[in-house]
C-alpha cells in the first residue's frame, strides 16, 4: 500500500516540476509588463518645462508659479517642511522632473505622484513628533488648521478629501494621513470623506492643535450604489429586493469559485457545492425552485449575460449521449473570484423583469474591479492550502468481511446445507485494505494573484493575472487555472466614453471519476472504494497496479482519467455618448462569450468498465459561442427639488451557437495513451456525433423610476422578448413589473428620531420568464437508428424522435414581494426583511406520458409551482472594548416550495436512479408537495420470526425472518407499488449564514458559520454499503454490520446478511432517506496587517491563516451532507427532480491555508 502511494507521489511530482517552471515564467512576464507600464505613466506631466527667475521668494510661491506654467498640481503638508522658507531659483525650460530631483538634492524634499498630484515631503522621515511640536508653535498667525486622519485600526489614510463645508476649499491627506488647510473662516466644519468610508464631520477653530479624525468603513448602505439591470441606482432609491455582497478578502479564503464565497452570504440564495472536487459544479438557486428543468439564475458579468448553465446550449438531453459524459456544468468555475468587486443578487420581479424571459430564477450581477483615478496600485496575493478529507466512513476490515460472507452463506444456502466462504484461520494472512486510504490523500494547493489598477482623469485601467494549482484529496486529481483580465475605460472627450472588458481564463482539470452522472455509479471513485472488498490487493508483488483485481479503485484513480480543458473568453466593448450631459446618455455595447472545452475520460483495466471493454474512452469537444449586442438610452433628471426621474430604454439581441463532437471507443491495446489513443482502439462503441445548434433571442426593454419628494419611489419595468425556441405565434411575450417604495425616514414624523437612520417599505409585483426548453421541440424530428438487414450489412435507418408541440410558449413566474429596510444609529444596526410569493405557471416540461404513444414524454407547458418565503438579513457593529470592533452580520431564509398542479395527470417522476437494481424513479413532483420530493416505500421493520412473516401483509413470496418488512399503506393486505408515499423533501426548510468579524489594531478574525436545516438526502451509497446482500454489494459499512439482524430481537432496522435476493428488495425506501440538516463552521480566518508607514514602497502588508470546513454538525451517515444539488446530467432534463441524491459525491475538504497579501 505504501508502495502505491510512493508510486502515485512520484508521478505527481514529475508533473509538478513543469508546472513550477510555468508559474515562474508566467509571473516574470506579468511583472515585466506591469513595470513597463509604470514607467511610461506619469511622464507627461514631469516632462513639462518651466522657467523661473526668483530671488528670496517663498518656496510655496515658486511652486505656485511652476504649477501655473506646467499645469502640474502640488501638494505638501506643512508638517513635512516649511512652505514659507525663502529660496532663490533661476532656470529656463527646465523639466519638472529635473527640478524635483534638484530640490531633493538641495533641500531634501522628495516627491510622490498621487492621483496626478505631486506630493512633496521631507525625505528624512525620521522625527515626526519633533515636527508636530514645531507645528503647534507655528500655527498661531493664520487660519491654517492641521490634522491627521486614520482608519479604525489607527493606520494613516492617504488621499482623504478634506473639505471646508459650504466653501470651495479643500485638500487631500498625504501618505501619513496628515493634511493642512487654510480655513476661509475662523470657525468651520471639515468634512472628511473617502470612498468606502463614512464621511466624518469635525467642527474646528484655528489653533485647536492637530485635528484627529477617524474614518469608519462604510456600513451606511444608503449611499451605496447598487448595480441593477442596465443601470445603477442609489440604495436609497432602490425599490426592488436586491442583496449586495462584497467579496472582501477573496484571496484569503480557500475557494476556487465565486459561488463558494457567496454561499451563505445573502438571504434567499441557496448554493450547494455538488462535490468537494475543485472546479466541480455548483448549483445555485434563488428563492426556491420554480422550474422542473434548470433553476440556475442568469449571470451577468459587467453587463454581459453569460452562459452559466451548460445545458442551455447543449443539444437536447438524452438525444446526445456524449453530453452525459461532459463535465458537470460550471461554466463560470474559471472566473477568478479575486477580480470581483461586488455581486448583486436581484431577487424580486421588480428587479428581474428587465431581464424578461431569463429572470425567473433571479439574476446575479457580477461587477469586476476596474481602475480608479489615482496612483497605480500593484498588489500581489499568495495562498497555500493543505487539504484533507474530513472523515472516513468506517467499513469492514478483512476479518469482519469474512465473517459477513460466511454468515451470508450460512443464512442463504439452507437448501443445500450451510457452507462458508472464507477460512477464518487464514484470514489474518490475507490483505486487509482500507480503500479509502488508497484513494484519498492529503493534498496541497497554491494560488497566486497579481493585479495592477490605476488611472487618471481620462484613462482608468486594471490588469490582473492569476495562477492557481489546486490539488484534490482524491489521489491524482487537480484543477489548475490561469487567467488574465484587462479592463480599460477612457473618457475621450467630455461626452464620449469608451471601454473594454476582457477576460481570458484557462483551466486544466483532472477530476476524480464520480457520479454526479447518475448513470454511472459503478464508475465513481468514492462509490467503488466503499464497495471494494478489503481482501483485494491494490498492487501486484512488483508494485504495478493490480489490474487483475476486478474494479480495483487504485486503477480507477491511477490509470483512469477524467480530464477536461476549458477556455473561457469573455469580452465586451462599449461606447457611451452623452447627448445631454448628465441627463441623456446613449450606450452601445457588444459582447462575446466563448466557452470551449475538451473532456477526455478513460476507464483503464481494473475498473468495472475498463475490464469489460479492455479500456473504454470518451473524447468530447464542446464549443459554445454566445454573442450579444445592446443599445440603451438612459435619462436622469432632477425635475424639481427632491423629485427625480431615472429611466432607461433599450434593445438587445443575443445569439447562441453550440458545436460539439464526441467519440466513444473501447478495446485499447494498453492503458498507456488513455483517451488520447483512439487510433489504436479496436471498437467504436458509439458512432461519432457532431451536433450543432443555435438559438436567438431579441428583446426590447424599458424602466422608469420616479422619485417624489425623496419619499415615494415608483418603478415600472417591462421587457418584450422574442425567442427562436418557441412555436410560431408564441415567440413573443411581455414581462411587466411595478414597484413602490416609501422612504419613511424622510417623513417629518421620523426626522426627529435620530437613532433611526434608515426606514423604507418596499413592495413589488411583476413577471419574469423562462425559455429553458430544448432546441427543436416545436418540430417533429427523425433520429437515426441502425439496423442489420441482408447479409452482413448494416443500414442506417430512421425512426421518429419526438412529438412536436406547436403551442409551446414561455414559462412565466409572477412574484409578489414586500420588504422593509431599517437602520439604527447611523446604520450601526441594520435589518432587511422580505416576504415573497412566487408562482410559476405554464411550466415548460418534458412531460412523461404513457409509452403506448410511442414516446415517453413530450415538451409542453403545464402546471403551477409556488414558492413562498421569508428572508431576514441583519448586521451590527459593536465596539466591545477599546479598539476592539465586532462586526456581525447574518441572514436566514425560509422557503416553502409546493407543486400546485401538474395538469390532469397530476404527477411527474424523476429519472431512474441507477442503471441496474434501483432502476426506478425515487423522486416525484406531486401537487401539494415540494418539487423533487423523495418517493418510495416505508419500511415497518424487520421480520422477526416465521409467524411475523405470515401475519404481515403479503410481499415477497420468498421472504424470511431477517428480511425487510414493508408498511401496507393502503391496507389491501399486500405490498404493491400503491404503498409508496412521499418520504422527504430535498429542499431545506431554512438556510442561514452568520459572519463574525473582530478587529483589534492590525488583527482581524473572521468566523463564518453556514447551516441548512430540514432537507432530506437520498443516500445511494447506502444502497450498496448497507444492503447486506453479500453477492450484490461488496463491502459493508460497520454500522450496518453491527446493527444487522441475526436472530429474533437482534435488530429491527438492518436486515440479515444473505447471498441471494436484491439489495433493499430493489425498492426506494425510507431506509435510504436521511436527514441532511447541517451546521458547518465554514471558515475561520485570522489576519494581521502590518504597520507599513515606515516601509518604503509598500502601502499594505497582510499575513493570514485560514481554516475551511473545520467541522460540520450533522446526522447524515455519508461523507458530507452537501451532495449534488441537482444531478446535472439528468437524461430527461428534469434537473429539479434530481436534487439531494448522493451518488458517491467527493466530500468537501478540510483545508488549512496561509498566505500573504501585499499592496505596493
Amino acid at each position, binding site marked *: 500500500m505504501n508502495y502505491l502511494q510512493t508510486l502515485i507521489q512520484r508521478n505527481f511530482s514529475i508533473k509538478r516540476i513543469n508546472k513550477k517552471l510555468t508559474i515562474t515564467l508566467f509571473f516574470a512576464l506579468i511583472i515585466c509588463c506591469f513595470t513597463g507600464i509604470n514607467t511610461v505613466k506619469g511622464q507627461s506631466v514631469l516632462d513639462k518645462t518651466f522657467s523661473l527667475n526668483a530671488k528670496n521668494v517663498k518656496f510655496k510661491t515658486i511652486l505656485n508659479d511652476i504649477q501655473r506654467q506646467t499645469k502640474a498640481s502640488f501638494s505638501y503638508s506643512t508638517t513635512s517642511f516649511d512652505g514659507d522658507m525663502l529660496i532663490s531659483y533661476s532656470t529656463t525650460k527646465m523639466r519638472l522632473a529635473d527640478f524635483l530631483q534638484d530640490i531633493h538634492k538641495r533641500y531634501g524634499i522628495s516627491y510622490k505622484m498621487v492621483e496626478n498630484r505631486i506630493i512633496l515631503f521631507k525625505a528624512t522621515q525620521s522625527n515626526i513628533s519633533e515636527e508636530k511640536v514645531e507645528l503647534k508653535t507655528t500655527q498661531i498667525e493664520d487660519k491654517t488648521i492641521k490634522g491627521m486622519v486614520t482608519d479604525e485600526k489607527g493606520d494613516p489614510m492617504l488621499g482623504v478629501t478634506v473639505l471646508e463645508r459650504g466653501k470651495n476649499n479643500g485638500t487631500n491627506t498625504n501618505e501619513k494621513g496628515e493634511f493642512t488647510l487654510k480655513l476661509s473662516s475662523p470657525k468651520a466644519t471639515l468634512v472628511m470623506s473617502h470612498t468606502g468610508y463614512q464621511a466624518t464631520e469635525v467642527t474646528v477653530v484655528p489653533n485647536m492643535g492637530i485635528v484627529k479624525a477617524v474614518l469608519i468603513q462604510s456600513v451606511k448602505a444608503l449611499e451605496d450604489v447598487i448595480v441593477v439591470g442596465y443601470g445603477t441606482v442609489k440604495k436609497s432609491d432602490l425599490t426592488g429586493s436586491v442583496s449586495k455582497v462584497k467579496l472582501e478578502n477573496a484571496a484569503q479564503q480557500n475557494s476556487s469559485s465565486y459561488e463558494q464565497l457567496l454561499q451563505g452570504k445573502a438571504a434567499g440564495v441557496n448554493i450547494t457545492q455538488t462535490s468537494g472536487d475543485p472546479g466541480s459544479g455548483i448549483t445555485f438557486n434563488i428563492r426556491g425552485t420554480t422550474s422542473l428543468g434548470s433553476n440556475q439564475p442568469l449571470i451577468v458579468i459587467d453587463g454581459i449575460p453569460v452562459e452559466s448553465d451548460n445545458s442551455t446550449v447543449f443539444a437536447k438531453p438524452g438525444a446526445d449521449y456524449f453530453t452525459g459524459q461532459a463535465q458537470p456544468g460550471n461554466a463560470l468555475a474559471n472566473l477568478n473570484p479575486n477580480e470581483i468587486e461586488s455581486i448583486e443578487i436581484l431577487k424580486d420581479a421588480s428587479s428581474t423583469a428587465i431581464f424578461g424571459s431569463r429572470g425567473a430564477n433571479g439574476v446575479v450581477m457580477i461587477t469586476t474591479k476596474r481602475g480608479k483615478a489615482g496612483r497605480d496600485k500593484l498588489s500581489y496575493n499568495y495562498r497555500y492550502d493543505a487539504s484533507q478529507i474530513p472523515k472516513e466512513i468506517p467499513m469492514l476490515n478483512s476479518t469482519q468481511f469474512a465473517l459477513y460472507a460466511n454468515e451470508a452463506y450460512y443464512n442463504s444456502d439452507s437448501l443445500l446445507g450451510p457452507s462458508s466462504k472464507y477460512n477464518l484461520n487464514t484470514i489474518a494472512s490475507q490483505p486487509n485494505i482500507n480503500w479509502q486510504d488508497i484513494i484519498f490523500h492529503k493534498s496541497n494547493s497554491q494560488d497566486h494573484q497579481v493585479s495592477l489598477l490605476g488611472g487618471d482623469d481620462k484613462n482608468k485601467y486594471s490588469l490582473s493575472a492569476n495562477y492557481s494549482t489546486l490539488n484534490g484529496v482524491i489521489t491524482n486529481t487537480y484543477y489548475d487555472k490561469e487567467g488574465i483580465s484587462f479592463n480599460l475605460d477612457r473618457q475621450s472627450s467630455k461626452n464620449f466614453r469608451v471601454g473594454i472588458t476582457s477576460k481570458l481564463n484557462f483551466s486544466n482539470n483532472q477530476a476524480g471519476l464520480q457520479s454526479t452522472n447518475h448513470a454511472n455509479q459503478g464508475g465513481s471513485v468514492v462509490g467503488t472504494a466503499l464497495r471494494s472488498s478489503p481482501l483485494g490487493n491494490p498492487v501486484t508483488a512488483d508494485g504495478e497496479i493490480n489490474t487483475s483485481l476486478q474494479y480495483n479503485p487504485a486503477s480507477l484513480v491511477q490509470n483512469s482519467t477524467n480530464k477536461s480543458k476549458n477556455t473561457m473568453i469573455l469580452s465586451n466593448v462599449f461606447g457611451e455618448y452623452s447627448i445631454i450631459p448628465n441627463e441623456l446618455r446613449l450606450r452601445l455595447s457588444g459582447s462575446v462569450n466563448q466557452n470551449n472545452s475538451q473532456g477526455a475520460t478513460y476507464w483503464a483495466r481494473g475498473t468495472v468498465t475498463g475490464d469489460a*471493454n479492455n479500456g473504454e474512452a470518451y473524447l468530447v469537444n464542446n464549443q459554445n459561442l454566445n454573442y450579444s449586442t445592446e*443599445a440603451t438610452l438612459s435619462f436622469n433628471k432632477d425635475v424639481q427639488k427632491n423629485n427625480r426621474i431615472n429611466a432607461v430604454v433599450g434593445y438587445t439581441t443575443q445569439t447562441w451557437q453550440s458545436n460539439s463532437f464526441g467519440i466513444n471507443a473501447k478495446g485499447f491495446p494498453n492503458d498507456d495513451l488513455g483517451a488520447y489513443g483512439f487510433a489504436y482502439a479496436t471498437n467504436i462503441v458509439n458512432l461519432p456525433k457532431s451536433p450543432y445548434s443555435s438559438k436567438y433571442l431579441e428583446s426590447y426593454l424599458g424602466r422608469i423610476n420616479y422619485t417624489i419628494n425623496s419619499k415615494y419611489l415608483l418603478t415600472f419595468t417591462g421587457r418584450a422578448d422574442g425567442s427562436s425556441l418557441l412555436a410560431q405565434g408564441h415567440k413573443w411575450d411581455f414581462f411587466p413589473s411595478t414597484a413602490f417604495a416609501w422612504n419613511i425616514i424622510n417623513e417629518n414624523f421620523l426626522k426627529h428620531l435620530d437613532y433611526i437612520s434608515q426606514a423604507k417599505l418596499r413592495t413589488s409585483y411583476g413577471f419574469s420568464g423562462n425559455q429553458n426548453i430544448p432546441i427543436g421541440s416545436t418540430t417533429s*424530428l427523425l433520429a437515426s437508428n*441502425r*439496423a442489420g438487414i441482408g447479409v452482413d450489412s448494416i443500414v442506417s435507418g430512421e*425512426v421518429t424522435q419526438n412529438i412536436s408541440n406547436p403551442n409551446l410558449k414561455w414559462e412565466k413566474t409572477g412574484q409578489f414581494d414586500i420588504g422593509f429596510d431599517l437602520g439604527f444609529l447611523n446604520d450601526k444596526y441594520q435589518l432587511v426583511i422580505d416576504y415573497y410569493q412566487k408562482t410559476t405557471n405554464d411550466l415548460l416540461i418534458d412531460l412523461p406520458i404513457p409509452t*403506448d404513444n410511442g414516446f415517453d414524454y413530450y415538451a409542453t407547458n403545464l402546471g403551477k409551482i409556488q414558492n413562498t418565503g421569508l428572508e431576514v438579513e441583519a448586521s451590527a457593529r459593536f465596539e466591545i472594548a477599546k479598539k476592539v470592533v465586532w462586526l456581525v452580520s447574518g441572514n436566514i431564509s425560509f422557503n416553502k416550495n409546493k407543486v400546485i398542479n401538474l395538469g390532469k395527470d397530476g404527477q411527474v417522476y424523476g429519472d431512474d436512479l441507477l442503471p441496474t437494481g434501483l432502476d426506478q424513479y425515487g423522486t416525484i413532483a406531486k401537487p401539494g408537495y415540494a418539487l423533487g420530493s423523495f418517493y418510495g416505500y416505508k419500511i415497518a421493520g424487520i421480520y422477526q420470526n416465521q409467524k411475523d412473516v405470515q401475519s404481515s401483509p403479503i410481499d415477497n413470496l420468498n421472504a424470511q425472518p431477517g428480511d425487510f418488512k414493508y408498511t401496507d399503506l393502503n391496507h389491501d393486505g399486500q405490498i404493491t407499488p400503491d404503498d409508496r408515499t412521499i418520504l422527504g423533501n430535498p429542499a431545506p426548510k431554512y438556510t442561514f449564514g452568520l459572519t463574525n468579524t473582530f478587529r483589534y489594531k492590525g488583527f482581524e478574525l473572521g468566523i463564518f458559520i453556514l447551516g441548512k436545516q430540514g432537507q432530506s438526502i437520498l443516500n445511494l451509497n447506502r444502497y450498496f454499503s448497507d444492503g447486506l446482500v453479500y453477492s450484490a454489494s461488496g463491502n459493508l459499512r460497520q454500522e450496518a454490520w453491527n446493527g444487522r439482524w441475526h436472530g429474533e430481537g437482534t435488530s429491527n432496522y438492518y436486515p440479515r446478511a444473505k447471498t441471494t435476493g436484491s439489495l433493499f428488495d430493489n425498492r426506494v425506501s425510507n431506509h435510504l432517506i436521511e436527514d441532511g440538516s447541517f451546521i458547518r463552521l465554514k471558515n475561520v480566518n485570522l489576519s494581521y496587517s502590518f504597520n507599513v508607514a515606515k516601509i518604503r514602497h509598500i502601502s499594505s502588508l497582510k499575513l493570514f491563516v485560514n481554516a475551511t470546513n473545520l467541522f460540520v454538525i450533522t446526522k447524515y451517515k455519508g461523507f458530507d451532507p452537501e451532495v449534488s444539488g441537482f444531478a446535472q446530467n439528468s437524461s430527461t432534463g428534469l434537473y429539479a427532480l434530481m436534487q439531494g441524491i448522493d451518488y458517491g459525491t467527493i466530500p468537501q475538504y478540510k483545508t488549512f491555508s496561509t498566505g500573504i497579501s501585499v499592496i505596493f
Partner: protein
Amino acid sequence: MNINKIFFSLLLIVIIYGCNKNLTQPISDTQAASSVSTTADILKVLQGTYGIFQNQSLYKEELIKLILLCADDFTSATNQFQIYSEKIYNSSSPSIENAYSSYYQIINNCNFILSALPPIKTTSGTDSTLKVKEDGETRFFRAFSYFDLVRLFGSIPIRTQPSTINTNFYTSRSSVDSVYALIFSDLAIASNELNYKSSSDGIGLTNKGATLSLQALAYLTYANYLDRIGSNGMPYYTSADSCAKLVISKGGYSLVPNYADLWNVNNESNNYGSEVIFGIRFTRDAQVASTASQGSGYASRFSPSTMAGVCGNTTKGANGLGTGAGTYRIEPWFYNYYTSGDYLIDKRATATFMTTWRKAPTSGSMYVSYPNPPTYYSTVNGVKILIDSLPSPEPFIQKYQDPQGLDAADNENDMFIFRLSEIYLIEAEAENELSTSGPPSTAISAFNKVRTRAGNTVLLPTSGLSQNTFRKKIFDERGLEFVGECKRWFDLVRMKGADSTGLLFPTMYQYQFNKYLPTLPSGLPSINLVQKVWLTTSPGGVTDPYSIIPYNSKFLLFPIPQAEIDENPMLLPNNPGW
C-alpha cells in the same frame, strides 16, 4: 472624424447586424419528419423500425430474458436474470417496461409510415410496387408487435395513428378480441400486398411466407384463447391450418436436412434460403460495440463461463477471451426428458445440449456438466486432459456460438422467429384441435416430418392416438425442436394441458408447474466427489428449487408496467394477481 466616432459607428453597425435576424426555427442537427416524401424516405423509416426489434430492450436481450427464463426449461443464477427464473419480478421490473415501450415505439413508427405513405406520389411502376410492398411490410411489423404484446400482457391500448400533439395520450386498454381483430386485418392486407420470397429479397424485411406464418400462429393462439374462455375457437383453427398449408405448399421453404446446420453461424444466411422464414437479424458490428451494436449477445449468455472463444476470438472481446457468461442454463430434468423415452435417439438433443466442452476450442482443460461423470478424462485426441474445476450441475445450449464475434454483445447469431418445422407442427396442432376423434393422418404426417428430419426413429402411428395424447406430443416436440428459441413460454400459457390419465388442465403451464414438475426430485444434482457420481435424489435433485415454484395464475400474463400505470391510471386494473 475622430477615432471615438469610428469606434462608436462600428458598435452601431454591430447592433444593427444583431437586429437583422428573424425568429425562425433554430438550426439543429436532426432531420424534420416532414421531410419524408418519397418511397425511398419511407424505406429508411421502415429499416429504422425493423432496427428497434434488434435493440437491447427487445430481441437482443430484455425480451428474451422474460420469455426464456419464465418458462420451465431454463434457469439462471445471474443477478437481474434470477428475478424472472425465480418469478420474483414485479410490475416495476425493468425488462418488462423496456419490452413494452419498445413495441409501442415500433407501433408508432408503423403508424407514422402508414399515414405518410398514402399521400406519396409514385414516379414509376416499380415505385408504386415498392409503395404497396412497404405498406405490407409495415403492417406485418405492426401485427407482429401487437401479437407479442397481447400474448405477454393480454388486453392493451391500441394505437393506429401516429402520436401528435392532438393525440389523446391517455387511453384505456382494448379487449384481447379487438387486438386480435387488428392483427388479423393487418395481416390479411399484408399477405395480399406481399409476394412469396424471392432470391432478390434482402434478409430481414418480410414477405408473404412470413406473413402467412404469423397469421397461422396468431389464429392458433387466438383459437386456444377462445377455447380457454369457453368460446368457439374452431373457425380460427381452420384458418391457422389453411395458412400453414399455404406456407408449406407455396412458400418455397424446405427443411434443412441436418438440424445441426441451422446453428452453424457461418451458414446462417443460407438457412434463410431454405428453412428459416423470418428471423431477427444480427450482424457483427465493427462500427459500434457492445450493447449498442447490431450484433447479438446470445453466444455469451447461453455459453458457460468456463468456455472461451464462443463470443469472440481470444484477442478481441470480453476479457480478451470471448468467454461465455453462463446466464441461461438448462434444467437437469429437461435434459433427462429429452434424452429418454421418445427422444432416446434424436439428433436435436446432441446438436442442442452441451455437457462437455473445452476451455478453448482447440486447447486447454476439459469441463463437463451433468450428467457426465465428474471423472478424469484420460485422452482427448490423444492428449491427456484433466478436468480442472467442479462440474456444472446444469447443461448448456450450444445453438449460439460465434468464435468470430467482436465482443460479448456483438455476435452474428440471429433469433429465428419462424422455421418451416414450426409450420408443420402448427398444421398438425390445428388439425388435431379441429378433429375431436383424434388427429387426422395429415396431422400425424406433418408431425413425423419434423421427427424424421431429426433422425428420430420413433414415428407416431397414423391412427389410434387420442387428441389429448397428440396434443402433449406436439407440446413435447416443440419443446425440443425450439429449445432456446423463445417458443416455450408462449406454448406453456397457450396450449391446453393434459397428462396420460386424461386429466385436463387449462394450460400446459398449470400442468407442468402443478402436476408434473413437483413429482421430480427438487434440487440441483449434487456431486459425490469420492464416487465421482451425480446424486439426483436427496441430497440433490433434477430441478432448480428456486426456479420451479408452485403454479400461480397471476404469472399467465405479465403485469402492465408500473411506470405506465403511474402515468395513466386508466390502465387499471392491472392483470389478475398484479
